[in-house]
């Protein structure tokens, strides 16, 4: 019974924790511009994150080593340092975007300008990281993030035009008002929103901190294979709501307030309150994860003591990296750079940086020295290599598409 409860909690946390500012922005933007024509990308991305998270969770549980620890071992100090620089900058950009998302969510609830909330949100974020235990921290925000299920209900309540949406789902080409360039750009952005590197740094480091062993592998797989796809369903619902409300009117989405509007149209004030709570929980939870991940990447490259299980005094360098990263994220926002634009850039560069960490994990997942009998099977390897190709294509295409379309135009 207790076991069942733990598994259920794990799944619910995975669902609620799946969506972050990148998903909120990318899914409603694409829903508004392409209807459900890019729904397939979310499916491809969710399968990808399942493959990646399962491998890195298995590596962490069996070898006791998190992702970035292995990156340096497999790539050598020089390539791994370049890798660290790339991964850290992307995580930092994402952290900044999440803090901006928290501030925007509070603005929707208070009408006080988001820039005033940025320092406050960042301070509370740091206090939570400093004082709150790992597990309750993850649980509370993951579960509160489930408020975003309101998008699924709202979609049905909006009386969607089923035939048109079904047509769009099965159309693999841009609508008349868009071209292949913008189509490609949003394919990459959506894919990156589903497969963000920090999720895996966090996931595998969490597995090491919670001392997962081979016995926990079954639980880990259930969390990943049930939780992430259901989280992907939330992403699709966000896209679908935008597709129903905005796409027919030719309205583009470039603000978080627009992402929330379909729910208000369906359920009024109560729905709006729930969705704003969901925004807050999703972005704050993701800010915690990215803040820690920034520390994890640096500490794991250099071999420093990291994590929340030891006294902060014993992991001084790790805690300094986390603190400095939050300050840098705040500084970027205080230049008055638009948080939504920061989010878009973070997605593009996530796509660029993804192969850097994916490849070493794929290699180690095949290494019997680390994994013994738990190495990848034939099916996992086929999937793993297929995704390596997809990830490489997205990484190569991301920056040219960004310039070609001017961030999607």
């Amino acid at each position, binding site marked *: 019974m207790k076991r069942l409860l733990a598994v259920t909690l794990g799944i619910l946390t995975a669902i609620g924790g799946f969506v972050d500012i990148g998903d909120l922005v990318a899914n409603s933007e694409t829903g508004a511009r392409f209807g459900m024509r890019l729904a397939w990308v979310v499916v491809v991305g969710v399968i990808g994150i399942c493959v990646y998270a399962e491998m890195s969770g298995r590596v962490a549980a069996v070898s006791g080593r998190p992702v970035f*620890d292995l990156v340096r071992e497999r790539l050598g100090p020089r390539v791994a340092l370049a890798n660290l620089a790339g991964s850290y900058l992307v995580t930092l950009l994402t952290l900044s975007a999440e803090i901006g998302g928290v501030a925007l969510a509070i603005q929707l609830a208070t009408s006080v300008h988001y820039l005033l909330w940025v320092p406050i949100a960042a301070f509370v974020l740091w206090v939570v990281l400093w004082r709150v235990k790992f597990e309750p921290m993850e649980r509370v925000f993951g579960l509160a993030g489930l408020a975003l299920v309101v998008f699924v209900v709202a979609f049905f309540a909006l009386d969607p035009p089923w035939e048109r949406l079904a047509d769009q789902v099965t159309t693999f080409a841009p609508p008349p008002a868009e071209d292949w360039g913008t189509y490609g750009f949003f394919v990459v952005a959506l894919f990156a929103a589903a497969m963000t590197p920090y999720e895996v740094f966090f996931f595998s480091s969490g597995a090491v901190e919670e001392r997962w062993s081979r016995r926990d592998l079954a639980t880990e797989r259930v969390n990943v294979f049930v939780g992430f796809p259901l989280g992907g369903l939330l992403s699709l619902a966000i896209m679908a709501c935008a597709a129903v409300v905005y796409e027919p009117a030719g309205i583009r989405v470039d603000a978080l307030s627009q992402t929330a509007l379909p729910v208000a149209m369906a359920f009024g004030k109560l729905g709006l309150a729930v969705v704003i709570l969901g925004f807050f929980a999703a972005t704050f939870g993701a800010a915690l994860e990215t803040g820690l991940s920034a520390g994890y990447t640096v500490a794991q490259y250099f*071999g420093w003591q990291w994590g929340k299980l030891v006294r902060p*005094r014993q992991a001084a360098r790790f805690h300094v990296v986390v603190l400095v990263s939050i300050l840098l994220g705040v500084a970027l926002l205080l230049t008055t750079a638009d948080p939504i634009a920061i989010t878009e850039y973070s997605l593009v560069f996530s796509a660029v940086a993804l192969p850097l960490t994916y490849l070493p994990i794929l290699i180690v997942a095949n290494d019997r020295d680390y994994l013994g009998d738990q190495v990848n099977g034939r099916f996992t390897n086929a999937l793993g290599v297929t995704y390596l190709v997809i990830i490489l294509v997205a990484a190569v295409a991301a920056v040219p598409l960004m310039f070609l379309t001017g961030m999607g135009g």
Partner: protein
Amino acid sequence: MRIDFDLLDRQIVDLDGYLVGKADDVELGVGEDGRPFVAAVLVGHHALGRRIGGVLGRCMAAVARRLHATGDPRPLRIPFDRVAEVGSALRLDVRHELLDTPALELWLRDNVIGRIPGADDAGR
């Protein structure tokens, strides 16, 4: 055992699993029979900087030389005899308290993290 594949860049943990550092470099010795052996594992940005090389590596080593607690800026040297197990990590047979704390950690502990309330509270 291959030094480049099985030793270098591995995580080093102490008796209790505390993370000591990475095997940034190794020190080789030559035995009486003329065969080389691994004498010690070196930990620190000086050692790492030397291996990375180039401008960046020199900078890293220079910073590490500046940051020293004892006036003796050298990497932490752990004799290979102290390594009890070579696996996915190098496990030592001593506690980390017996090894020198890296200068950067010491400085940040005393001047930054240690001054924040709650720094001594048990792990979370």
